[in-house]
């Protein structure tokens, strides 16, 4: 009974949507439309964070979305192995690096001009586009520290009083992007000096941002270098989580703003639906979703920023292009290995 009902719904729904017909000039309600009504997204972003966003999109447009969830880097490697045979239409990545890798493989279509016009230039390239912003911050223990005790530059953590109290995740993509940005902004010498100093501080080396936040809460360390939005997620899960975010001064390499974003696959036969998805992410509804549900910065002007954050202008990181970070990654990993922070 239920199945019959579902079958009827499945048959009726696309027809109904096609029947409504938005502003498409083509009058044919079958072939072209039917093909455009489905979309396959490879999402490096967690289902618990963006699952509702896909539902929102389907509700708004009638386009059915199939999502493959995974780790951003692993999905980028998968798309690279698939090549032109990739079933993906859109790659929704947690960071710019994975998007850059797929771009490097020559698999992404150009970003539509209308979308590009909405997002500041520093948050996109001609092949991928940022959809939400994530700032580097210093997370600290509210049980053992006050905000006033924290320096305003990441460089000042190279001080004896922080010895044994710092933690960060060197294998993590966003940490490595931050180090790349520091190398570009300050030059090789100073970046290496700082990393060597950090290594001498006897830091606790973690795997990812969440481990770092938990190490602060558990009393292993007092401060951690992470992205800003993990904390609100953790607090939603565990009220009273004894950690707070400290924003460093504008222009500091420790306050790099990176993005999560999308690339449209050149091999896709559903370019139209893919563009509609991108348009939705950049629409007020999509941007508000990031601000209120994932606590990330909207990148389109005019949308309120997430609570408990500083304005994006004030957390402006070093003046560098995100697209440069990708090229730096291999040498950054080498540097981290050299200094002894990555084994």
């Amino acid at each position, binding site marked *: 009974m239920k199945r019959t009902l579902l079958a009827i719904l499945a048959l009726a729904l696309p027809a109904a949507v096609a029947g409504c017909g938005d502003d498409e000039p083509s009058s044919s309600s079958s072939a072209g439309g039917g093909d455009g009504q489905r979309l396959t997204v490879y999402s490096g972003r967690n289902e618990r964070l963006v699952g509702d966003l896909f539902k929102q999109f389907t509700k708004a447009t009638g386009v059915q979305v199939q999502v493959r969830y995974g780790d951003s880097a692993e999905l980028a*490697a998968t798309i*690279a192995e698939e090549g032109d045979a990739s*079933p993906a239409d859109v790659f929704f990545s947690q960071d710019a690096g994975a998007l850059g890798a797929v771009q490097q493989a020559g698999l992404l279509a150009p970003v539509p001009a209308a979308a590009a016009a909405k997002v500041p230039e520093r948050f996109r390239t001609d092949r991928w586009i940022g959809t939400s912003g994530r700032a580097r911050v210093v997370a600290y223990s509210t049980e053992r520290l006050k905000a006033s005790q924290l320096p305003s530059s990441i460089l000042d953590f190279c001080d004896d009083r922080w010895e044994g109290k710092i933690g960060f995740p060197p294998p993590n993509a966003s940490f490595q992007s931050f180090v790349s940005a520091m190398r570009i902004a300050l030059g090789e010498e100073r970046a290496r000096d700082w990393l060597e100093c950090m290594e001498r501080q006897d830091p606790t080396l973690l795997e990812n941002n*969440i481990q770092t936040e938990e190490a602060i809460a558990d009393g292993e360390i007092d401060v951690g270098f992470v992205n800003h939005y993990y904390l609100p997620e953790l607090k939603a899960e565990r009220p009273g989580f004894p950690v707070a975010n400290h924003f460093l001064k504008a222009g500091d390499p420790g306050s790099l703003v990176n993005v999560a974003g999308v690339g449209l696959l050149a091999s896709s036969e559903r370019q139209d639906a893919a563009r509609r998805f991108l348009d939705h992410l950049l629409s007020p509804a999509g941007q508000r979703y990031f601000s209120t549900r994932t606590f990330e910065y909207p990148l389109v002007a005019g949308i309120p920023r997430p609570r408990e954050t500083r304005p994006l202008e004030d957390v402006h990181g070093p003046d560098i292009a995100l697209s440069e970070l990708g090229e730096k990654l291999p040498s950054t990993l080498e540097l981290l290995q050299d200094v002894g922070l990555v084994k």
Partner: protein
Amino acid sequence: MRLVAAAATLVAAAAVLPLVYLLVRAGGASADAWDTLLDDRTALLVWRTALLVAVVTAGAVLLGVGLAWLVERTDVPGRRVLAVAAALPLVVPSYVTALALLAAFGPGGLVSAGDWVFGLPGAALALVLATYPYVYLLCAAGLRRMDPALEEAARTLGRTRAAVFRQVTLPVLRPSIAGGAVLVALYALSDFGVVSLMRYDALTRAVFTQYRSLFDRTPAALLGLVLVALTVVVLVLEARSRGRGRVRRSAAGADRPAQRVALGRWRWPAAVAGWGAVAVALLVPVGVLLGWSLRDAAEHPSFGDLAGWTGSSLLGSGLAAVVAMAAALPVAVLATRRPGRVSAVLERATYASNALPGIVIALSLVFFATRVAEPVYQTLALLVFAYVVRFLPQALAGAHGALVRVDPELERAARGLGASPARVLARVTAPLMAPGLLAGATLVFLSTMKELPVTLLLRPIGFDTLATEVWTATGVSAYGTAAYPALALIAISIPVVWTLQVRPRGDARTDLQE
């Protein structure tokens, strides 16, 4: 036999696909990349990995053999329950064990005692607790099958109990121990979740860092080849230990229970040791999961969702078990009935991929499927194929052990009576092997239930399993939500272990008499 050989070759060819992929990738490596492979850092990683594998294997063998002996050969209190409980940690995913150990003994944990859990001690402990059941299950089965006359004869000749254990029991058990130890060693080589959570820099962690940072599959492939080289070392060591101590059963012998050792004043200390180990391996994870589920009681997934994920898990794992069993059969038959260099190489080849991290196996199948088998890409068929490639050695361990027990004379007699080889296999060999095959298939089933990286990349879209849901929830630190699919995973695996451990005991009726 020619048909069997052809089938075995086909299976072996499928199993070495990931290896071929690594060679293809490594073939494109620059001289520079090869250089970094030979530097001190790689040497250090190999040393740390070898150390972990050695400690874990030694620990798992001690614990596994010890528990098997206690349960099968002594009057330790509560041994019939212990027999099943000792096997159950096999159903707890190793990353859940590691998370639970952290929650229990880590900083800020329930019994916080410094940071000893990080690094080698914690990683080794979690892996020993997760893998000792491989040794335990194979050894317990070995002890049950063993002709009690051997030990009795030695006792009559005046040997002490310790001497009997060393000179008679251990040699007979050697193939079982070696088979279990290989599975343990390969698991420790390929595991990523535990070393990542416990912050121990092993080769797999480096492979993942390379994938994550460079998006370049070449350096990771080179490190993968180092893992394959370590596998070869493990297999050579195993082959040697297997070769030395083969005790064949001369006649079918009576299936009667062995005499139990009265532990005397050691009875209670032994019970505490045995039960203690099992409690840490089983009760700590289950306790921590229950705690999480109660803490965030509002977060629980709906019953319908849980049922759906369970269904997917059962379907994928069930198919993987059946196919792996079918694939292991010809390889095992060839290896035991036509022993020689070729069949040995074929059998060993199927182990080649087992030490590789799942992500490598997944990417290799992405590579091959999109090039030569696109219609099956991201279908259940390819997913099951991937599971079989990954876990074939576990099916083989069972099949091989069972085949050694089948007297070739029976097959020759059947042939003499005019049966075709296929008929002999179907009517004589296969039924006799059934218990061993079933044991192997069960191991595959349980491993597949917990499998993650291959499932994530190769499953049909929307095919959500219990393991992928645990991953999704822990990815945002939602342990309360993760607890439900994790507990469901353990709960539905229990009857499977129960069948594996209890039914064979029930068959030997006399065994149950006190």
